[in-house]
């Protein structure tokens, strides 16, 4: 029985986190947020843009990720994300602008379904980034 998780969080641009002993990982899964601890059942999910965090001892480290995948097997958690930022890296001004732009887009009627989804995605990403600011 292992009681630690191996966590690897990578994006196309960099390896964000590679940590061999993590206690708990909280991911924004497709159908809802999940907390993953050691000996979790194998799992593969698409990720929503949102808050991602992991606990190591008493410390909790938070990040914001956008669309990606998470796989859990044999106490290894692999996160493949389109982007991942630590809280202190987030540019709130940019997120605010992005949110305004996305909201404006969504108010327009007669958007194609795909364009609508894209705008919605953008809004979610912006919201995820902004949300973390309030809790600071």
């Amino acid at each position: 029985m292992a009681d630690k998780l191996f966590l690897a969080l990578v994006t196309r641009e960099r390896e964000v986190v590679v940590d061999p002993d993590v206690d708990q990982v909280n991911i924004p899964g497709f159908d809802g947020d999940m907390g993953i601890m050691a000996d979790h059942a194998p799992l593969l999910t698409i990720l929503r843009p949102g808050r991602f965090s992991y606990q190591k001892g008493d410390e909790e480290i938070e990040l914001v990720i956008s669309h990606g995948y998470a796989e859990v097997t044999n106490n290894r958690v692999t996160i493949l994300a389109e982007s991942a930022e630590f809280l202190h890296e987030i540019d709130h001004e940019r997120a605010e602008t992005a949110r305004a732009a996305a909201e404006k887009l969504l108010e327009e009627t007669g958007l194609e379904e795909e364009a609508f989804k894209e705008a919605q995605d953008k809004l979610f990403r912006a919201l995820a980034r902004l949300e973390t600011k309030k809790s600071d």
Partner: protein
Amino acid sequence: MPNLRDVKQRIKSTKNTQQMTKAMKLVSASKLRKAQEAIQTARPYGHKLRDVLNHLVARCNNDLHPLLDNRTGNRVLLVVITADRGLCGGFNSNIVKMTQELIEENKDSDISLFIAGKKGLDFFQSRPYPIEDKYLGWTKDFGYLKAVEIGEMLAQLFVENKSDRIYMVYNEFKSIIQQEVIREQLLPIVPEEVDGGDMTDYIFEPDEEAILEDLLKEYMTTQIYRAFLESSASEHGARMTAMDAASRNAKEMIGKLTLFYNRTRQAYITKELIEIVNGAEALKG
């Protein structure tokens, strides 16, 4: 006796060449650093994605998705990635050579080409193989979005049954002085066998099909993206090495020519002296 002015001229022009090769080497070195960083940070993502995909596909039925369709057909599309510019040693010709080998191996098939880079096009446009599409000037504007675009185009060709097999030929970046020509099957995607690993009772969110669809596309795009980055880093590496060698050769040549110049100059002087002395002796007599 050789003309001294000609020799001097040659020394000068060789010096000019040396200056140019030196400058190109420096430019490549700085570009290389960026390209190398890009590829080294992109690699882990590709590897991890491949692992996840292998796990997933190992559990799924292979005819679940059209991109996995391993059909027998004889229309082969080769994606050939060369550089837009030359002066980089065997970089482009190695690609061309490997492509020709691949064509030779598949000579019973219908071959068509997708060519990235001007140097590849220069070679293949006068050959009898149809060029499906080309992508010139990629060294300037390539980015992830471009990879998505190419990926979508290739996937469409494959899904619409216009092509049965798609290969990529590109240079992989091993180190600054070493590139390796790689040929890789892009479509259909062939998952590797995964050993061990308990594949039962996987939880999928939302469901297998949706994840597979998403993951396969992402995987293909990442493959293309990575191939271009590898190629870019290799190109700068190859050019740097080639230009370094050229600078060294130029230096050697300048050395030889200068030696020759000085010797000849001395010979002229000696000859003139002898003539003067002889003339003086003759007058005495």
